[in-house]
């Protein structure tokens, strides 16, 4: 159950089986899929000397090269391929598609291959972005992929198709034929579950895997049941970079960072290729700082020893270590730059103070204190507008049903502090999108007397770190699943599918509407501490607060009929 290894396996298998000079031909989608899991030097080592896009019309004819194609079978890509085969640039073509091909597509390709250049046609199900070994995303972002069509209960047909394809590819690449459960209150989850079950039935042969002791479980959840997690300030390295700078396809765009060196304008953060990142991606900023320091010290030691070259032996050592040393120096400066930028933003935006309030709003009922604190922060000019809005949204979500709800006065206060009405309308939007009426479970544990008591008890235990005390709602669901206590009424099995009552060994969680790195961290932790059970988390995308609020506003426009 390692999505990175699965996709990597596909890519390397494509280029490995073939000897001689090769070109790898990709399309828009597969370029990002491949770039997440394979480096250029990995591909070069496999004699793959050129990587090009199939929609690049200015490719030279190189009939002595073999061509490995990896394409998503979209209408667009197939069209490009048809044109390519009509007038082939390369000698032999080994076609790989990231999903199932329609029979008609195969026939169409067979029809145009007049030069008999195609040697193989394969389906390799690497049709998703493998971000961490236990996290994948489909990268479905508006405007290309809208989640909803007519109402919040209907999928956009295009997005649904892509989601079914991506999720089924994930299952196939992991070789899982799961029992499907979904969140009852979400029409989207139910529809996706049904479509997926239908797909599995249709492609029965593909899903003919070795039987596991207990069937794996696919749990389909809806982001709307937990609007809080994507709104919080993050303190875990990976999550923090995504929240404050943004990670897209494993790349971080640092060009907006002041005084950045030119080679650090765009950097890659990949746990697979960067051991330091792998070690630190789930550490909070404090621990990360200590690690960075140790890393820099190590680098300085090496530099020092490289400075003192006195004997032949030293020289030899230097020559041997130099390439490794250079790699280290690049990596050190990369992480130092990123962490420097993070801490700059933390101070600039008063994020520690903000986060303390956020955590309090997310975890406990302290209406009076929180409100006072919130009013103070709104009046602080250094706190950016977005942050103020996020805080009010968290407040509005938690105290939605509270008799003392002061959202209205907070909005007035925002207006007084220069936040336009148009911008603060997002507060109402988030309530309409994922307010209490829209949610299935008692997210804040404040809806009934009993749950309030429970949350009070939880508070008594004390917390290790004020800023990271929040656990995503997902945690509770999985805990119940592991204890076999997940209720059929809230998380039914899909009609006509298999049902299991045993403790699961493999669990795949898919979040419709996007997951977060905080949840990814929780899953990684769970993987490390739960012997005998493995988890993989996926989502239509990976949110930070900005992208989540874009979704909220889009959805809200839909509800109110503004398109």
């Amino acid at each position, binding site marked *: 159950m390692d999505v990175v290894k699965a996709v990597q396996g596909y890519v390397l298998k494509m280029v490995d089986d073939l000897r001689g000079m090769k070109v790898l031909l990709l399309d828009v989608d597969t370029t990002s899929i491949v770039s997440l899991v394979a480096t250029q030097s990995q591909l070069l080592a496999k004699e793959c000397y050129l990587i090009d896009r199939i929609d690049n019309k200015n*490719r030279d004819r190189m009939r002595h090269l073999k061509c490995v194609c990896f394409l998503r079978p979209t209408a667009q890509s197939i069209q490009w391929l048809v044109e390519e085969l009509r007038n082939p640039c390369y000698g032999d073509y080994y076609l790989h598609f990231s999903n199932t091909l329609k029979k008609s597509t*195969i026939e169409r390709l067979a*029809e145009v291959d007049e*030069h008999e250049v195609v040697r193989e046609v394969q389906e390799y199900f690497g049709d998703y972005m493998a971000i961490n070994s236990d996290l994948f995303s489909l990268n479905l972002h508006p405007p290309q992929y809208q989640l909803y069509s007519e109402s919040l209960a209907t999928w956009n047909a295009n997005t649904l198709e892509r989601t079914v394809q991506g999720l089924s590819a994930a299952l196939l690449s992991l*070789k899982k034929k799961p029992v499907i459960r979904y969140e009852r209150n979400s029409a989207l989850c139910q529809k996706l579950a049904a479509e997926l079950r239908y797909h599995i039935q249709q492609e029965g042969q593909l899903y003919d895997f070795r039987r596991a002791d207990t069937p794996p479980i696919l749990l389909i959840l809806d982001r709307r049941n937990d609007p809080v997690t994507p709104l919080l300030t993050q303190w875990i390295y990976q999550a923090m970079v995504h929240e404050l700078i943004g990670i897209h396809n494993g790349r971080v765009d640092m060009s907006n960072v002041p005084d950045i060196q030119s080679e650090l304008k765009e950097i890659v953060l990949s746990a697979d290729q960067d051991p330091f990142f792998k070690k630190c991606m789930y550490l909070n900023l404090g621990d990360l700082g200590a690690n960075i320091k140790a890393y820099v010290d190590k680098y300085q030691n090496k530099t020092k020893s490289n*400075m003192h070259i006195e004997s032949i032996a030293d020289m030899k050592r230097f020559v041997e270590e130099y390439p490794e040393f250079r790699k280290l120096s690049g990596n050190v400066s990369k992480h130092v730059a990123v962490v420097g930028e993070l801490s700059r933003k933390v101070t600039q935006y008063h994020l520690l103070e903000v986060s303390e309030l956020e955590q309090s709003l997310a975890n406990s009922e302290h209406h009076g204190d929180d409100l006072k604190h919130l009013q103070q922060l709104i009046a602080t000019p250094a706190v950016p507008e977005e942050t103020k809005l996020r805080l009010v949204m968290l407040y509005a979500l938690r105290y939605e049903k509270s008799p003392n709800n002061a959202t209205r006065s907070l909005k007035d206060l925002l207006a007084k502090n220069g936040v336009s009405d148009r911008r603060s309308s997002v507060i109402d939007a988030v309530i309409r999108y994922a307010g209490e009426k829209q949610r299935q479970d008692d997210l804040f544990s404040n809806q009934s007397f009993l749950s309030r008591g429970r949350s009070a008890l939880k508070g008594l235990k004390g917390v290790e770190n004020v800023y990271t005390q929040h656990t995503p709602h997902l945690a509770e669901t999985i805990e119940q699943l592991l204890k076999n206590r997940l209720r059929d009424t809230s998380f039914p099995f899909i009609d006509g599918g298999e049902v299991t009552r045993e403790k699961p060994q493999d669990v795949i969680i898919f979040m419709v509407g996007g997951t977060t790195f905080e949840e990814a961290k929780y899953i990684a932790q769970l993987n490390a501490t739960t012997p005998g059970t493995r988890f993989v988390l996926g989502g239509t995308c990976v949110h930070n607060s900005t992208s989540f609020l874009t979704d909220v506003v889009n959805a809200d426009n839909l509800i109110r009929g503004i398109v």
Partner: protein
Amino acid sequence: MTVNDRFITELYPSPCSSTSSSPFNSPLVHASPTVSPNLRPSYLLDLDDDDEWNPTILLLSRDAKKMRRISSASAVTLATIREEEDIAISSNFQLYIVSPFASIQYIVMALSGLSASSTVPSRAVHSSPSPSPYEQFIPEGPVACPICDLSCVSLQQLNRHIDDAHTLYAEGSGEDDDDDDDILNPVKTWFKAAQKKVMLPLKDKNTNFARFSSGLLDPHLMSNFSNNLQLSSQQAPVQVLPEADQVTKAHWQPDRPNATCHHPGCRKALGRSGVGKRHCYKCGQLYCDQHVQFTMRLDRQAEHDPYEGIWCPVCQSCFTSQEGYNDHEGTTRDRTTLFLKGRTKTMDRVHLEENRLEKRMERLARIHALQDVDSPTSSPVPSGRLSPAMQAKRTHPNPPSHDAPRSLMHRASSSSVSLLGLRKNFRDAERTVVGWEEDANVIVCPIDGAKFSFSNRKHHCRLCGRVVCGQPTCSSEVPLYLDMSIEGMDAEPVGYTRICTDCQRSVFRRKMAHDDMVRPPPVVGLYHRLVRRKEDVEKELPVFQQALAMLEKGDVQNQTHDDFKRAAQTRKDLLSSFAQLDSLSKTIGNLKKPNSPSYQHLHQNIHIATTQWLQEHMSALRMVPHILKPAKPSPDVASPEKIQAQQQLDILNEQYTQVQEFITDATKKRKFDDVKNLRRNLAELESEIERVKALVAS
């Protein structure tokens, strides 16, 4: 084995050790409270105070409280076990439960290897159904006979069936074998005694408990117990289950007093307080509690069986090494066959079309050849076929190169300007080859969809007769050959005519593919050499490393001269291979191909990849001198100092070039700090080289 076993051993050291050959442990558990401190606190043993070896009936359950109550009512020995321990216990106790309570009698056989999740039912026997808190032991629906698997509608029926069918069997076997009879008898009496005791408070008259249980006893299994029974010289409580439902323990590692956890890196001493001692059911090794947290389904041979297997605790390595667990290779599906089926059809069509067009092409060529001949400059030709001499005589205004036909196609009609007059003459003849489409019917070009106008003229394709535009992507003038085979196209064309690109593709399909493959760009040859060199090195390198290892291992004094020489020779070969590789890759990197960014890219990437490869593989070679140095003082022709110096010089030179490379690299990347360092290095190297050179020369 587990706690209980050990604890029996303490009580009765000799008898138990003598039974250790038996796959079954003594089911006997009877202990005085003094022993219990040795037990893990999680085991609650309630013991009968009676010192006599009364038949002991064990009741095993996950619900401790419930069972305790029963025990006080009936004075049976009782072991209550924490939920997760019951497997361990049951596997040692081979259990059989008789629980008299109120007016109900249950005979519950808890099977060994009982999984935590399944409650006994399938083999439970119960004589009078009544509502009770023990309904979990009452099977629902039909039950199967534990001996012959006959399914019975109810427990009563099963009881009757056992009476009828299996009582005889036990007795019969007893008669067959005296020994068995001897064993069976005590067992039977024991059960009778037990029954009496148990039945006292019962009004129920219709139990066939004794017979039933004796029926269960397989004589073969019983013999295993004979020793135990006799040695204990008491009527020991013996009950055995059909082997069918337990996972074998034959492979279990015997329990040693100072065993440690088998988990790599754990080494915890087992059996101490706080550290449980458990077997992995699959590999049979001993582990501490933490390292047997995994469960998987095993069959009777302790092999993984996801279908019918029983849930058993296993260790991490057994769990993670199960088949498919670490399988990272995703599903793939090969659609090549389907594709090829479709393509065969296509190719049939293509070949047909190709032949048809080639025929037309040849007819056109003949027309041109004839017309050409008719023109004043040439003499008449008898047939459509021209002799090579004739062709040579005819001078084309723009002699066609032997370039790929493509280039000719794109070279618009310039070649035929002077033939304009002639072209008119061709036209009528050309129309006989294929009927031309009516101009008036066509408004846009069928290929690129452009509208025809004064500037965008209409043209006819001479092969299919369609009206197309004159854009080079839609139609162009192509050379005509009398012979359309690949060799025939090497001859000089007899003329030029316009055909559309669709027809061009068909008609020159083979020729184009052929041309591309015949004249490879220089990189292909170079790369081929590169690959061969690489293969050589990959073959030689392990040989060399082996030789080195041998030299290192062997005594330096005893080492023969030949071995050393051979190693040195291999090293030299390798070094030269590396040098060749390096120069080859540089040559490729410097190859020029104007107007072709793709080729430039290709060349550079090959160079980069080779450099990477060299760095990786040369590091192995760099280590050599260290090892070879002590081997050097062999009686050699030259003085040892000189050889040493020579070798040192080699190394230094090697390093010198490397540092130079680093410098250029660093300069390129504008890492001036590094460059400074490197330069200092280089200077030092230089002086060192000078020194050694002087040494060698002396």
